[in-house]
């Protein structure tokens, strides 16, 4: 077995050192009836690298990869070009095969990366501080609601109808068990987001309002107005960013008054990967630092006075606080945070702004073309790189028909919001810097074809 260095002679000599006759003597604590006599029945034996590669490659070939066809999906996961150096660097064994930096003297590489990452996230979000990442955007969103409850000592969270429905489901699922009160506004097909409904839902018992920016339909809420309304009632504004590239072009949520900003960092450095692993971003005001979930890296000095970094404020965490921890989270998304950080280091703030401008321009070209198709209208008054178009028939069928024509043409709102009425003709379409003029034309042509014969 190519991964197991012990030879039969090694094993025999080690058993002798231990003083037992055979390997099963080391498993004597396992009750005899539970011990398996040999390899589990019905499972294949070990396989060569070549054989495994052949098997996995055949499975991969059954998928239609985004890069092979005109591709317009978003809804919380975006296809961006990742520079080649990013994937090369994250495969350095010293990053890839290191553990959580519990021994800081020999983990300064990981720790300095986390410090740089925290700084990048904080500056991107316009928050004072940020943590070293969480599982993904949806779980970071729930953690933000819990934190807002700790800070305000109130337990009623209002979710905008523009929040990604998976995020909303995660929150409602968790709240069912923690007994937090969640008010979920219904998604509505309107040109503008539901700012007024969100503001009207804030009362004195409200711990926070959760508003996605841009929202799941691609619209852009007026965070400053919502922040003012929330603060007037002693509530916090939690802004959720599922497309961080947008923040190269539109104002940072923290600057607009958001108290906690969470998000999905996948867009930078991390590929689509069928949904994971991704990385949750989490930034907030400095005064909340002791209430934050997740790992934090801090600057300090070593015994010779040199700058160095350590995991810090760990008394918030499960391994010390146990049942009183701020969260049960034990890990972060270290390698994805590294990829995010490298990509953002390559870009810099100016590069990110330029990337965002290109994304928006590609989206403009896409929606201008789609709007010329009879029966297709653009919903949004404003958008960044993703918006909602209204079709003359159920978008779920249209998505399937487009896939038959080798076009991945967006996400139907019917799939995202299966129980909401009146959304089924809506299609969420995203464009990025990877979207070419040919892609747009192929999409539009295919859409025209599949809509033919349907009254506009």
């Amino acid at each position: 077995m190519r991964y197991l260095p012990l030879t039969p002679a090694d094993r025999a000599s080690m058993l002798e050192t231990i003083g037992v006759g055979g390997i099963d003597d080391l498993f004597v604590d396992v009750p005899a009836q539970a011990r398996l006599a040999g390899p589990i029945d019905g499972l294949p034996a070990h396989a060569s690298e070549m054989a495994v590669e052949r098997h996995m490659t055949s499975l991969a070939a059954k998928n239609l990869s985004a890069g092979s066809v005109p591709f317009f999906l978003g809804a919380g996961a975006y296809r961006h070009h990742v520079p080649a150096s990013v994937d090369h660097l994250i495969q350095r064994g010293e990053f890839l095969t290191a553990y959580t930096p519990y021994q800081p003297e020999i983990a300064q590489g990981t720790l300095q990366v986390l410090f740089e990452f925290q700084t990048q996230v904080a500056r991107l979000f316009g928050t004072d501080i940020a943590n070293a990442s969480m599982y993904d955007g949806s779980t970071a969103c729930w953690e933000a609601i819990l934190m807002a409850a700790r800070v305000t000592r109130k337990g009623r969270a209002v979710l905008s109808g523009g929040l990604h429905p998976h995020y909303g489901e995660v929150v409602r699922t968790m709240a069912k068990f923690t007994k937090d009160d969640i008010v979920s506004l219904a998604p509505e097909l309107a040109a503008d987001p539901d700012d007024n409904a969100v503001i009207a839902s804030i009362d004195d018992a409200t711990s926070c309002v959760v508003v996605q920016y841009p929202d799941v339909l691609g619209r852009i809420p007026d965070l400053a107005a919502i922040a003012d309304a929330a603060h007037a009632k002693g509530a916090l504004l939690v802004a959720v960013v599922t497309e961080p590239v947008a923040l190269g072009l539109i104002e940072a949520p923290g600057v607009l008054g958001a108290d906690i900003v969470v998000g999905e960092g996948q867009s930078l450095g991390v590929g689509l990967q069928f949904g994971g692993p991704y990385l949750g971003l989490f930034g907030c005001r400095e005064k909340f630092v002791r209430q934050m979930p997740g790992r934090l890296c801090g600057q300090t000095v070593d015994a010779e006075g040199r700058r160095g970094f350590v995991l810090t404020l760990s008394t918030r965490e499960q391994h010390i606080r146990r049942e009183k921890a701020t969260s049960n989270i034990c890990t972060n998304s270290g390698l994805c945070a590294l990829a995010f950080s490298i990509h953002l280091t390559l870009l810099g703030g100016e590069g990110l702004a330029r990337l965002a401008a290109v994304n928006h321009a590609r989206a403009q070209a896409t929606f201008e073309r789609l709007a010329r198709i009879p029966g297709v209208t653009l919903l949004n008054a404003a958008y960044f790189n993703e918006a909602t178009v209204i079709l003359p028939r159920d978008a779920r069928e249209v998505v399937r028909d487009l896939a038959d024509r080798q076009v991945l043409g967006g996400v139907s709102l019917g799939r995202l919001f299966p129980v909401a009425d009146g959304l089924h003709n809506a299609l969420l379409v995203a464009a990025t810097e990877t979207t070419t003029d040919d892609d747009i034309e192929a999409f539009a042509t295919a859409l025209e074809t599949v809509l033919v014969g349907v009254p506009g």
Partner: protein
Amino acid sequence: MTRYFSEDHEWIEVEGNLGTVGITDYAQGQLGDITFVDLPAEGATVGKGDSVSVVDSVKAASDVYTPVSGTVAAVNEALADQPELVNTEAETGGWLFRVTLSDAAELGSLMDEAAYKSYVDSL
């Protein structure tokens, strides 16, 4: 002015119906360098034995239990910037909070200095 001690290593100094609470010098020595003190809200009603404050060191977070019932009258604001006062002046400038006692009889269950000293020696 009388000073009492609890088995959880809190001290309380009582003047009239106002008690000043901190952790003992022995306790701070066990905890090591204090990095942060989470203090109760002024005006909060607390019951004897409630965990009302948390003292953090690098590797531990320790609950502080109020030795008496009452209302929190004041907290030591200096600890926000100088948590190390709990190390350097545990039984003076490193006090944590003041409680307006609601039941002075509770003091009867606490130890005096001599009893606490022999209690610590027995640990």
